[in-house]
């Protein structure tokens, strides 16, 4: 093998005294797809931020070598000049700006001192067709695009800088399986065109599908390097290195049978977007029994989240038709607070934007939904509150120094656990979990699955919304499939498989 295109040698990095990377070695051969995997908090994003100059040269130890020669990046501009482009985990398009404005933001094409709009639109069109986004109109606003389209725009934006190396941090975590599939094909095609790709992903199936080589990080150390061309690599092998232990079963087995008593029934439920008049959810009928985990599968845009939110007090003010029957009684929720009072809870898929208050502490986040339970009169009993938060920290194994730590400093998995703790503190009887394991690592996932099983055995009714098919198949007692706002299929766990569920989802 020749000189690696990129080599990181003995890189160490600390944040205010806490070391997060320990002598990490990392190398990428030219013109390959290299996958970087590891649990959340393993240091993947930090490592990539060093490589892309987000953390400047003097803030870490070790060396970056490009084609064998040591380089120093003092900022993102330096790494871009060297041909390294990064697409961060959270999309960073400006929603109110058009696609072409976003693509050339910071790199505007100018004629004299004036932006050459026509040239920009023309170039944007070329770039979009390169990423198979021919159907994206360069003049539409970013906010009007679906998540997967925005992802393509991000890639087009990165490609506009003609990078040698393209780094993608969790690009598929917000995409449905079909969309991810397309993205992976695109990555392979880009490789053909001579771009070297570094891909960070939690979805090991995808990793195995595209990787030429794989680096595994664990707790800030390089623990494995696989060359996929010369050795056999499978999911289990990678997971073992990632977690440092053997996980025999990804999904904990069911312990108790659901009861026959219906906890929640929804009849002829429709939700209409009041601006466009479009049906987001149409004529949905479903029920959940006590102690049952019901999976709700659908591709992105199928209306799953809208269904969950419209049931949960309808905070976005869709026009609603239909009825909710809770333990045999018809109810009407005007706002989420009403739903919480009736023992229903919706756990958002978007923990940063809609779930947590990042600048607040673990304690404050956990108790927010049900603060009145901790109040004597109007005053919050802080001693009791701390006890509650500490109790959840222990039960859910939230990794933090204490409960006074700001949530923004936690890793994704631990933030998700705080969100779950917050939900459980309202003592709900019916829990709608919207993508509860998105973007978190295998270990934390397993812990959340365990918790779901436990809640079910306590008689709670759970609706699990997910776009990860294995998760739906592994956890559900019964499965509903949604497509274009309607329920297109209902399956018992024993009769469901990848193929028939997917068939309903695309029908």
């Amino acid at each position: 093998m020749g000189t690696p295109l990129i080599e990181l040698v003995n890189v160490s990095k600390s944040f205010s005294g806490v070391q997060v990377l320990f002598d990490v070695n990392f190398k990428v051969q030219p013109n390959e797809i290299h996958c970087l995997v590891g649990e959340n908090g393993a240091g993947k994003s930090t490592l990539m931020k060093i490589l892309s100059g987000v953390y400047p040269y003097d803030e870490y130890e070790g060396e970056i070598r490009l084609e064998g020669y040591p380089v120093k990046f003092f900022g993102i501009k330096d790494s871009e000049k060297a041909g390294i482009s990064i697409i961060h985990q959270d999309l960073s398009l400006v929603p109110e700006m058009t696609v072409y404005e976003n693509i050339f933001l910071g790199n505007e094409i100018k004629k004299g001192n004036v932006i050459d709009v026509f040239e920009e639109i023309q170039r944007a069109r070329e770039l979009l067709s390169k990423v198979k986004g021919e159907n994206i109109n360069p003049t539409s606003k970013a906010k009007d695009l679906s998540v997967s389209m925005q992802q393509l725009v991000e890639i087009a934006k990165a490609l506009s800088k003609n990078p040698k190396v393209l780094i993608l941090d969790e690009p598929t975590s917000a995409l449905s399986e079909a969309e991810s599939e397309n993205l992976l094909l695109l990555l392979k095609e880009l490789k053909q065109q001579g771009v070297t790709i570094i891909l960070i992903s939690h979805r090991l199936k995808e990793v195995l599908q595209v990787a030429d080589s794989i680096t595994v990080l664990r707790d800030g150390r390089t623990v494995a390097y696989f060359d996929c061309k010369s050795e056999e690599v499978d999911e289990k092998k990678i997971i073992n290195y990632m977690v440092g232990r053997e996980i025999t079963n990804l999904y904990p087995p069911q312990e108790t049978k659901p009861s026959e008593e219906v906890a929640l029934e929804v009849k002829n439920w429709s939700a209409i977007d009041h601006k466009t008049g479009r049906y987001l959810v149409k004529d949905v009928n479903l029920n959940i029994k006590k102690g049952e985990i019901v999976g709700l599968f659908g591709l992105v845009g199928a209306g799953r989240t809208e269904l969950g939110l419209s049931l949960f007090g309808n905070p976005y003010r869709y026009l609603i038709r239909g009825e909710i029957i809770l333990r045999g009684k018809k109810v009407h929720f005007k706002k989420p607070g009403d739903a919480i009072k009736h023992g229903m809870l919706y756990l958002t898929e978007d923990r940063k934007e809609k779930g947590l208050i990042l600048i607040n502490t673990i304690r404050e986040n956990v108790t927010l939904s049900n603060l009145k339970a901790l109040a004597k009169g109007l005053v919050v009993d802080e001693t009791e509150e701390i006890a509650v938060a500490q109790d959840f920290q222990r039960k859910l194994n939230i990794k933090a120094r204490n409960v006074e730590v700001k949530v923004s400093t936690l890793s994704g998995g631990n933030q998700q656990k705080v969100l779950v703790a917050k939900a459980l503190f309202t003592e709900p009887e019916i829990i709608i979990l919207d993508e509860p394991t998105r973007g978190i690592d295998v270990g934390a996932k397993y812990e959340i699955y365990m918790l779901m099983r436990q809640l079910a055995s306590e008689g709670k009714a759970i609706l699990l919304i997910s776009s990860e098919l294995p998760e739906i198949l592994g956890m559900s007692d019964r499965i509903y499939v949604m497509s274009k706002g309607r329920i297109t299929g209902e399956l018992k766990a024993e009769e469901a498989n990848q193929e028939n569920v997917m068939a309903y989802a695309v029908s």
Partner: protein
Amino acid sequence: MKEFIQHLKSFLKEHVRDYAMFIALLAIMAVFAALSGGDFLSPVNISNLVDQTGYIAVLAIGETLIIVIRHIDLSVGFLSGFLGAIAAILMEFHHFSALTAIIIVLILGTLAGLLNGSLVAYLRIPAFVATLAGWLAYRGALLLATRGPGTIIISNKSFNAIGNGFIPDLPFSQNFLPGYHKLTLLIGVVGVILIIYFSLKNRRKQIKRGFDVLPWDIFIIKTAFIVALLLYLTFTLAAYRGISWTFVIVLIVTFIYSFITNRTVLGRHIYAVGGNPEAAALSGVNVTKITLIVFASMGFLSGLSGILFASRLQSATTTAGTLFEMYAIAGAYIGGVSAAGGVGKVVNSLVGAFVMTTLTNGMNLLGIDISLQYIILGIVLASAVIFDVATRSKGR
């Protein structure tokens, strides 16, 4: 010794934001004291300073909560002036008692705040625009109210005492410490004892819960510093005529608002709405209700501010309330409120308000030209916010 320096360093690193306002205030005071040859620190001037801050301080406290929930209220200055004029009219032309006039004005203020809040919460009008409309309207209303006489002189003695009077002294104590206001001393000493008691209690509690606490040496220095400051203020005020009624009102308002923001469900919900409105709504917090309450409280405090100012001047004038909102907003920002929402402490805004009036008072005392005064105020405000932003982004 080495250990002590270590402690001090880490303390400064982690808490520089929390105490910077206090240090800045002291530094400004020290500069004025030096330049004025001690006049600035004379008991009469300190007492004056406290009373001058009163009507801005209550507004700054209200504005803190408004900014915490990501809004702004520009109408409060002229609302305060207008409500002061209403109080004057009620007492002078309609012979209401001081108490009735005050109650009416506070209710009117609350209603005005509710109106602003409704525009923002129900009709979703940006607070800047809604309250700018209020700013214009109340300015007109104030001119209307004071048309004719121009200035309405208030003759009600008990009303005027709010802005100019002092708490009575203890009876039967003339011979003990003559020249000092004994009740003020007593309050100060009791305050010191309470502060020491609660700091120790709190520290013990936190250790028991396994939280990080300040090391002993720093803890002692910090407490001693606060105690010294409080004692100094007590003795200075006692050497003049004691604690003024204005100061009493400001302390009560500060105490109540601190308590609400730190300890109650309402307070927590306010910070939650500011920190992430969407997450708060999905947690069952009624965002509309919180917005209404915060604006109503702002209106109430505008009424209070109007009363404090009118009684201090013993009259209602056509220009009352001019620029009050700007001083209050500046005070809140100097106190470290974040425009991004969810961050800001009531007590710090009070200190911020003191910084603003201290600067004005001190510069007036030194006879600095008014044009230069505004420029300096602008520079101080900008530096405070720059400092705040710089130290905030460091704590990763």
